[in-house]
């Protein structure tokens, strides 16, 4: 057994476990903490793929900004009556779980048995393309218009969030 496989399976196991904790825990704060762990483990998986910039951005944006927002909202809402949110295991729920599990097996079957091509190992140029320099070069030359449109999207999201969360809805 190669050390790369060992490392990958450890990270994959941890990420799946934390994802299951996110969707199965009764306490929303515990779910949020498990989600933070999941984001950190995904950042480590990005590092094994030589994507350094994406790994750092994952920690900054997801584990930093988005999760602070989540925890802030959970504490702001002060959810007391968790009993009303409980859902007994009825036939509809079982049907949904079976549907999702059949989807997972279909996707894994497709990915595992389809011949993806010659890319059995990671590309040798992947060390170069994951750097801040290369991603920044791509962003400001080939993808400049999407980058500028993203700023308009974020401006619209800021205004929308303020308007929606204001005390008196206009």
């Amino acid at each position, binding site marked *: 057994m190669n050390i790369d496989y060992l490392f990958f399976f450890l990270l994959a196991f941890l990420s*799946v476990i934390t994802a299951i904790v996110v969707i199965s825990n009764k306490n929303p704060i515990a779910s949020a903490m498990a989600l933070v762990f999941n984001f950190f483990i995904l950042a480590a998986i990005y590092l094994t793929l030589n994507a350094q910039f994406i790994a750092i951005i994952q920690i900054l944006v997801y584990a930093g900004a988005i999760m602070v927002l989540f925890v802030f909202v959970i504490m702001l809402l002060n959810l007391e009556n968790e009993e009303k949110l409980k859902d007994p295991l009825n036939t509809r729920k079982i049907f949904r779980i079976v549907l999702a599990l059949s989807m997972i097996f279909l996707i894994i079957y497709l990915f*595992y048995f389809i011949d993806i091509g010659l890319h059995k190992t990671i590309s*040798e140029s*992947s060390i170069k*393309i994951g750097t801040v320099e290369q991603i920044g070069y791509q*962003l400001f030359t080939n993808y400049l218009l999407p980058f500028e449109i993203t700023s308009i999207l974020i401006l619209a999201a800021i205004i929308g*969030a303020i308007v929606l969360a204001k005390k008196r809805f206009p």
Partner: protein
Amino acid sequence: MLTVPLNYYLALSAILFSIGVIGVLTRRNAIIVFMSIELMLNSVNLTLVAFSSFLGDSTGQVFVFFVMAVAAAEAAVGLSIIIALFRNKVTVNIDEINLMRW
């Protein structure tokens, strides 16, 4: 040189995506549903980064950057919608929020 093949990363991404789907379909807490959506976005990001690294093309990682920007905007707007709903109905149970159901 890394020896874990591309199929393993894609299978892990599929598993994480399906866990997110199960969370969206079974949980009734709107905030947990939102977290499950973030899980699904992350699994798609993992697919994009894996293909980008294995093909030696940086377009996938640029796309992941845009997905993260959209996810941040979506989280801000969605959580403010949850706050507005909680102010009106004092619940985050998505079964009781049926204002637009026909």
